[in-house]
């Protein structure tokens, strides 16, 4: 097992005297964290398969046209929500639980509650994605899971976050490592936005266009605040750990933290939205500040990995580097498209889909893969990561992402520029995009294969852990029997 070297900079490596041994902390996280990661990997594979099916519709419009549940309009949101709620959020929860315990130098409090909560969450996901395929989607992007699934998801999240909050409360360290700020803010950010959206969009829907504004606000806060907070928490923890350098600057991390909280939470309203002008204008100004956020993150990361002394976990580092690069690209794409002159071109095209995919998959999911490959050997208590399979996962996912989003972005710009000329036939413009999407379909296929490797990688740990547990139980039973036999004789 690659335990981080003692010179490692984060507080967890130099625990207070009263702190509990690292191995015990990891053991306390084992079940909930493994459960969250493995279920997340399974959802991710399922979601990629749904996405592949949806993509086939773009080339064969009569494909599965007898089945309502397998139409493009149901497969596409189902695949997006499987990626977000099936993988991203559970991964964020798992990473959060482990970091709260490790950075607080205290074993996870109430791991049973966390397991119970994760089970509830997964149940909610199953009902939700099944519900979308059955026609119960809400219709709002990134918030398509039907209301009955929402209650289960919320209950599951709250149970997990009770465990996380109690662990944070019992921390044994006095100096909070930057990752903890991000995680604390994220911990209650999600239930807040999710209950608001449930309340105003599903339980007691508000009137008229206010619905659309709240839906944009929610999607932005989920993808550009919650996922940024948890993703950056993982980045700021993993870069020092995997390179052996200290985090470049605590103040820069603080700046990023405030920028994300104060400004990113106001983004997400399209410039052309048919709402009072103050709403998109405020949103535009807040989005422009993301430029500073992006450069602050880039500087912090580059200065941290400047001279990788001796990479501790090269597999993780590779994923995290790709994730940070995607963060920069997604951030710049967002800032550029915020200007009204650009958004007049990019709105309503594939550009938006490309940007979301780079942010959610390219940044968050890739960083989460890196974090999971770092965490799982530690919580499982042994290392059996096959470097070849990890590498295959990385390359399939990275190449798949590039093949998916580059044609989408190109198609988006092409569509946007041509739609501006009313003399060009709309049918022809949209047919051009469908041609480009053939490359995207190949990309999704590559992502599907990558996710299969990911699931296999995690399952080897589950099998290994359970075998160890069975062996330990068996040997304990044997010892007991021998003891009893000894007493009797």
């Amino acid at each position, binding site marked *: 097992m690659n335990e981080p070297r003692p010179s490692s900079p984060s507080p967890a490596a130099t625990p207070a005297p009263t702190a509990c041994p690292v191995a015990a902390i990891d053991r306390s996280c084992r079940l909930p964290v493994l459960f969250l990661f493995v279920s997340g990997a399974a959802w991710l594979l399922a979601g990629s398969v749904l996405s592949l099916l949806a993509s086939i519709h*773009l080339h064969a*419009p009569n*494909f599965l*046209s*007898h*089945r*309502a549940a397998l*139409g*493009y*309009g149901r497969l*596409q*949101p189902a695949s997006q929500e499987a990626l977000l709620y099936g993988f991203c959020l559970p991964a964020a929860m798992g990473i959060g639980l482990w970091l709260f315990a490790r950075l607080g130098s205290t074993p996870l409090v109430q791991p049973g509650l966390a397991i119970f909560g994760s089970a509830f969450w997964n149940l909610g996901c199953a009902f939700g994605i099944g519900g979308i395929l059955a*026609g119960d*989607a*809400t*219709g709002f992007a990134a918030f398509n899971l039907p209301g009955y699934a929402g209650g289960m998801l919320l209950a599951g999240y709250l149970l997990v976050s009770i465990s996380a909050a109690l662990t944070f409360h019992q921390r044994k360290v006095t*100096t*909070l490592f930057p990752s903890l*700020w991000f995680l*604390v*803010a994220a911990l*209650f950010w999600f239930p807040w936005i999710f209950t*608001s959206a449930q309340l*105003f969009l599903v339980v007691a829907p*508000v*009137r*008229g*266009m*206010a*619905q*659309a*504004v*709240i839906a*944009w*606000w929610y999607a932005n806060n989920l993808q550009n605040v919650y996922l940024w907070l948890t993703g950056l928490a993982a980045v700021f923890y993993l870069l020092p750990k995997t390179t052996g350098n200290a985090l470049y600057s605590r103040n820069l991390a603080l700046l990023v933290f405030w920028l994300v*909280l*104060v400004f990113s*939470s*106001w983004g997400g309203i399209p410039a*052309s*939205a*048919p709402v*009072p002008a103050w*709403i998109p204008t*405020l949103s535009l100004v807040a989005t422009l500040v993301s430029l500073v956020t992006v450069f602050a993150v880039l500087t912090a990361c580059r200065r941290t990995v400047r001279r990788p002394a001796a990479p501790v976990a090269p597999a993780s580092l590779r994923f995290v580097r790709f994730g940070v690069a995607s963060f920069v690209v997604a951030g710049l794409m967002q800032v550029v498209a915020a200007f009204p002159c650009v958004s*007049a071109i990019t709105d*309503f*095209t594939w550009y*938006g*889909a490309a940007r979301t995919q780079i942010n959610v998959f390219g940044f968050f999911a890739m960083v989460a893969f890196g974090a999971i490959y770092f965490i799982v050997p530690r919580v499982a208590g042994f290392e059996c990561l096959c470097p070849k399979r990890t590498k295959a996962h990385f390359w399939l996912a990275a190449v798949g992402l590039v093949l998916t989003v580059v044609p989408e972005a190109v198609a988006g710009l092409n569509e946007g520029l041509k*739609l*501006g000329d*009313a*003399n060009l*036939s*709309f*049918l022809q413009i*949209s*047919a051009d995009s*469908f041609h480009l999407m053939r490359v995207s379909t190949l990309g999704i296929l590559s992502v599907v294969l990558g996710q299969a490797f990911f699931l296999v990688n995690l399952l080897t740990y589950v099998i290994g852990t359970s075998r160890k547990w069975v062996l330990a139980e068996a040997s304990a039973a044997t010892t007991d029997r021998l003891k009893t036999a000894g007493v009797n004789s």
Partner: protein
Amino acid sequence: MNYGPLLFLAAFAAMSASWFGFVIGPQAQLGRQQPAAMLGSPVTYPANRSGEARQGLQIYRANGCVECHSQQVRQTGTKLIVQLVELGTNQPALAATLKRELPSLPEAELTRAMEKLPAALLTTSARPDADVLMKAIAAAGGKCSLQIVPVGPDLERGWGKRRTVAGDFLYDSPVLPGYQRMGPDLANVGARNPDLNWQLCHLFWPRSEVAGSGMPACEFLFEKLPLGAVRSPDALVFPAGTDPVPGFQVIPTPAARSLAAYLLSLRADAPLFEAPFSAPAVAATSTNAPAVAPGSTNAPAPAAGTPPANPPKTS
């Protein structure tokens, strides 16, 4: 930043600001919106959709039509056209005024304009220019009208007469303005093609109506029955030579009927205070008319079945 409670309060404050700004704020302003009178008419807009159309919105939502269709027409600006309507009694004075106010207009054209009324004198995007000319004409005893024509690529495509405004969605739940246009904008699909049979045929087999369409067929919304002795009065009538299922009759289910009713109810074409217009739709001379490129959009021939446009004149 080493105190848990401080950290929590800081994040709480940031979250509340965003929440009050973009959840409570829009709800306070847009959530109380009421139907308003149309321009030049005491009739209020919008009217609620019919019960069938409201059920159709749920079919639209359930099948994710919003993944590919927007319902939001964008407008880049407004074109103002000053039209001479009446010459009045003092024609020489009017001619002199026009010559002074419109020095760039050749004299021959001016004479022609005064002979054949109504005649467009000035096309501009600046309201003050139009006002100056109109005042001068009024002073010379002539009468003129001002036409307001919204412009933008979406409008030139015949997707609407004006930009979409918040009021267009007043009675809808969920409100689905859309985010991607793999298919054409639907904000005015009911005005563009009010033929129920066309809409149903298009839903069942899009390529029977629009050659080369990329829209997935919605066969699951229809029943396919063998063509017996009696043909159902509800059966779809496909254009000659395009019947996708020869030997069968296709009967729309209630879901298909309500979805089509919803599509037909989509017509955001009332002139409003916040989105005025006063000219016949630009679509009438639109460039995507079938004559130019047959089937270039899902739009039928622009004028087919559209009720005669009778635009209220402002000023």
